[in-house]
């Protein structure tokens, strides 16, 4: 169902996103362009950060530990997964496994941005940390190429939003009540849908999205959370032999 929605939502020429993602040649973008592209998403990410701060406290993760978690891990879905396992009384190992599986997608994602990140090893390691789904998606300049400045601007903005949101959630969370009542859990997939709409630049991208969604859907009942997303990345193999034509 959501797959058909994803396809329908993929209006080819979505003004906000496609214009924002208009393929300038690599190197013409500035860090501030990355900040600008991701600013509307940063608002949503800050709200998720607040939610995480609230849930972490309910899961018995202390205020300081929750802040360290957001600052060092910077990967929302994995942090939510770990917190929810702990809060359901799961073991330490189960919480770690759930989070690591959810983050496994950052292996192929990290490889995809590798050509854009150069410099000494510690700089590459540091810059790789600002990669999250949203900063990755907005820094895609087409044809599988990623712009370093867009990535850094977008990533740093989202990082600040995420950590500040977590701090606010930890401090004032008790005033908010149940995040599900506010519909925040539906905001997450909607955010990804909007990002996907900006990525559907040609037929191959639409096919990859449909296939990736289908793989994930089929696998949900059979494997632990996180694995369906990693498996779905195999859908990009339909691009084999197509030589990565510019978007």
């Amino acid at each position, binding site marked *: 169902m959501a797959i058909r929605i994803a396809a329908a*939502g993929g209006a080819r020429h979505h003004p906000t996103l496609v214009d924002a993602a208009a393929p300038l040649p690599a190197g013409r973008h500035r860090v501030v362009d990355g900040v600008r592209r991701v600013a509307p998403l940063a608002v949503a990410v800050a709200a998720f950060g607040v939610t995480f701060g609230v849930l972490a406290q309910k899961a018995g993760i202390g205020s300081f530990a929750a802040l360290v*978690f957001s600052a060092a891990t910077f990967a929302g879905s994995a942090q939510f997964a770990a917190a929810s396992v702990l809060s359901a009384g799961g073991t330490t190992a189960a919480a770690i496994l759930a989070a690591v599986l959810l983050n496994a997608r950052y292996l192929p994602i990290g490889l995809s941005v590798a050509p854009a990140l150069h410099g000494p090893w510690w700089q590459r390691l540091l810059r*790789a940390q600002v990669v999250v789904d949203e900063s990755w998606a907005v820094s895609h300049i087409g*044809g599988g*190429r990623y712009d370093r400045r867009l990535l850094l601007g977008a990533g740093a903005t989202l990082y600040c939003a995420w950590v500040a949101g977590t701090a606010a959630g930890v401090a004032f969370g008790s005033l908010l009540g149940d995040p599900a009542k506010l519909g925040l859990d539906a905001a997450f997939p909607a955010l990804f849908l909007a990002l996907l*709409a900006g990525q559907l630049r040609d037929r191959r991208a639409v096919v990859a*999205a449909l296939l990736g969604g289908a793989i994930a859907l089929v696998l949900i009942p059979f494997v632990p959370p996180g694995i369906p997303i990693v498996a779905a990345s195999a859908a990009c193999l339909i691009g*084999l032999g197509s030589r990565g034509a510019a978007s």
Partner: protein
Amino acid sequence: MSAAWIVVIVVSLATIAIKGAGPLLAGGRELPRAVAGVVSLLAPAVLAALIVTNALASGRHIVIDARAAGVAAAAIALALRAPILVVVVVAAAAAALLRAIGA
């Protein structure tokens, strides 16, 4: 050390390693052309999977609930060319509304 701290430290170190692996091993090098064709499709494939799992998965179960309705509302907002923040708010509001009326 509490269980929570162990989770925070281990998950953080693992994530730093996972995110850093690609740029550490292959940083600054152009991908071979065959690989570039594949990588260009990684974003749509992974984003679609994130939509499906976030909207429909509840653990290992597929559930159609207020989240799916929220995403459907978001799709309509997108088709009407709403800005991204509006799309997200529409999804959250639709889900919240459905839950409030107990649907």
